[in-house]
């Protein structure tokens, strides 16, 4: 695995789904310790770009490296444990309790169960630990997703509109978690529509327009 100075290194990346062109000619680098704010109109392709960076969607062209690994090579699976993503809609299992959801992630990742309970406490949800995720409010589910990333400590964290659904007391979770990643020389890509709000926590911004980064 040749060393790379960047956590994300995209050059000429295009993305198509079926016959539709979503992204083209995307040039993007994010260095360790950097936090990128990604903006763009509705439908511009921000979520799509995050999923490509998360190795969940393969680019249809160009050269894309994430955490030093080429997205075309099978090695991309090996970097997945180092990636974290909080998307638009919660990804919890509705039948399982909030704590059980975290514990599942902990078991798969080889993290201790104590860390799961600890993370739940960190987001202020320890008293709702036994509530099934399907009965938790939208914001509560988002908080648990933050807890998961706090617990798993990814090197590259991808956030899709992280502020939505968080109440004022929880809104600093975003700043906290971004700071944590940067502190251990990780990188963050943060999608948002609210330039002012994310300004303090990003080191750089980019805008998606016409399917590419302007």
């Amino acid at each position, binding site marked *: 695995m040749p060393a790379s100075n960047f956590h994300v290194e995209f050059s000429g990346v295009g993305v198509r789904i079926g016959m539709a062109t979503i992204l083209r000619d995307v040039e993007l680098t994010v260095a360790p310790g950097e936090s990128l704010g990604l903006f763009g109109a509705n439908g511009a392709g921000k979520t799509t770009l995050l*999923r490509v960076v*998360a*190795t*969940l969607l393969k680019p249809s062209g160009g050269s894309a490296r994430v955490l030093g690994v080429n997205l075309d090579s*099978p090695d991309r*699976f*090996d970097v*997945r*444990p*180092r*990636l*974290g*993503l909080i*998307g*638009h*809609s*919660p*990804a*919890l*299992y509705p*039948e*399982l309790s909030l704590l*059980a959801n975290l514990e*599942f*992630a902990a*078991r*798969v*990742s*080889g993290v201790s169960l104590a860390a799961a309970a600890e993370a739940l406490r960190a987001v202020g949800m320890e008293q709702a630990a036994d509530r*099934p995720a399907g009965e938790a409010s939208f914001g509560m589910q988002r908080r648990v997703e933050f807890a*998961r990333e706090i617990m*798993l400590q990814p090197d590259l964290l991808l956030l899709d509109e992280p502020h939505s659904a968080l109440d004022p007391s929880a809104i600093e979770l975003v700043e906290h978690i971004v700071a944590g990643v940067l502190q251990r020389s990780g990188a963050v890509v943060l999608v948002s529509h609210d330039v002012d709000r994310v300004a303090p926590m990003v080191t750089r911004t980019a805008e998606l327009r016409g399917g590419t980064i302007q």
Partner: protein
Amino acid sequence: MNSGFWRQAMAVARRDLERERHAGEVVWVTIPFGAIALLLVPLAVGINQDVLSRIGTGMLFVVVMLFGVLTSIRRTNIETPPQRDAIALLGIDPVAEFAGKTAASAVVLLVFEVVMAAVAVALYGIDISGWWWMIIVLPLTAIGLAELGTISGAIAASVQAGPALVPLLVTPLAIPLLLGATQTVENIDPDGGNLSWLVLMAIVVLVLAIVGVLTARPLQETR
């Protein structure tokens, strides 16, 4: 196959069984629905008791197969796209995922099979002289169906037509299992004819396991 592998496989199996325990889909829907099917068929078809006790075992396995396929598309076995993304990013070993999912499904299917067998015996007055074979046949069928369900689920995951495709893929492929199961239990053959049917089943289960393990990674790559 280090400790990480087993830890992940166990975690997956545990998650699936927990989800099923909370949702109770198999207990509250598949089992009663299967029992109704067992009840309905002779009624509608108008078979008398004699024929029934003869063809009962076959009927049992048909129902096990058709509804077994339905359990592999049960809600708690299918992940939503965000859930799939999340689990992918946990960096789970695809082979461990295959093993864990299959194990959980096999347990669920075994429960279903045992209840159905009891219902069939009660309803049909089946000649159960060959039934001690069931001790091996039921688990083999359960494992085989579970393997098929997991593989097909992985094939169909994130395809548009999605979960809907699974039964179509699983049912025809499950025929050898169905044949093996029926024949083993029905043909009480002193020359060990049953054994050869059992061997067929075992081979199918093994082949499916090998296919499942070998294709787990290529299938993951499609995501």
